[in-house]
């Protein structure tokens, strides 16, 4: 756990996480062609505020990337139903954004997974280069959950690792009016790697 790190190790870990998230922010800005801020970074497994999803029965789009290689973990990029609609409208050609045919739906969902693919990869690249570990993200997968199922899903995902590191960012795209959550769960080996570096 992050609590196992001493002050200087913690400084390195938080800087690395911040740098990784900053790269993710830049990637998201480039994909969405709109400014994005990192509104908040947490290092604990705090429950997500479900109010932002517009109600407990609203659909939530969760895109998961599994980390492969020397470090195990998963990332989760989470958009509300309303945010997804805004992204489609802002970023996809009108004929796709407004069409509900199977082909257009495939394109829309592909667009969402590509956002996650690039944003997660930005963090992974930063960590891989800094920690000198061979890691990469697997092909991302999309799940549509009810808002009420979200926290339980994240807890279940976390339970796959014996000892875990959490960090969570809330991005904010003011122009697009979106606030996606970006949650990472790492195996505790992350801490060992940081300790070796310091």
């Amino acid at each position, binding site marked *: 756990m992050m609590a196992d790190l001493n002050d200087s190790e913690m400084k390195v870990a938080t800087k690395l996480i911040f740098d990784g998230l900053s790269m993710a922010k830049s990637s998201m800005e480039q994909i969405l062609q709109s400014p994005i801020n990192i509104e908040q970074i947490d290092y604990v497994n705090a429950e997500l505020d479900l109010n932002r999803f517009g109600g407990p029965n609203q659909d939530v789009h969760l895109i998961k990337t599994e980390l492969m290689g020397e470090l195990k973990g998963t990332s989760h990029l989470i958009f509300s139903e309303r945010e997804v609609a805004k992204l489609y409208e802002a970023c996809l050609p009108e004929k796709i954004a407004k069409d509900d045919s199977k082909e257009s739906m495939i394109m829309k969902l*592909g667009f969402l*997974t590509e956002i996650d*693919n690039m944003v997660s*990869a930005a963090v992974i690249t930063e960590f891989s*280069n800094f920690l000198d570990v061979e890691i*990469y993200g697997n092909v991302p997968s999309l799940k549509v959950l009810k808002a009420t199922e979200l926290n339980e899903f994240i807890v279940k995902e976390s339970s796959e690792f014996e000892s875990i590191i959490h960090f969570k960012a809330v991005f904010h795209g003011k122009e697009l009016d979106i606030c996606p959550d970006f949650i990472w769960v790492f195996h505790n080996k992350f801490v060992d790697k940081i300790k070796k570096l310091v």
Partner: protein
Amino acid sequence: MRVLIVDDSTYIRSSLRTLLGEEGFEVVGEAKNGEMAIDLAMELKPDVITLDNILPDMTGLDVLKTLNTGEFDSSVIMISAVGQQSAIVDAMNNGAKHYLVKPFDNSELIAILRQLDEES
């Protein structure tokens, strides 16, 4: 110039097909996994392959290594979200001409294709 697009994402394949078509390049095929990429590369013999690095069945690097064992002279542009220095070096050491990290500017890809076209 004849281009084969390899990416597991329908969205990316479609976006690249549209972009390249608008810029006057001929997209001769699309592959969504490594096995399909190898088959199409051998069959179609494109001038250029845009190759994603993370595919469902193998890595783009594996595809590149397999193609290098046969008669293969297409130029390969790796296009991937994987941006680690080691991945880039591995790809270039195995014959990739360029490595673009997603997200990238479309103009960058077009400039590379035009440059390859001039060199051929």
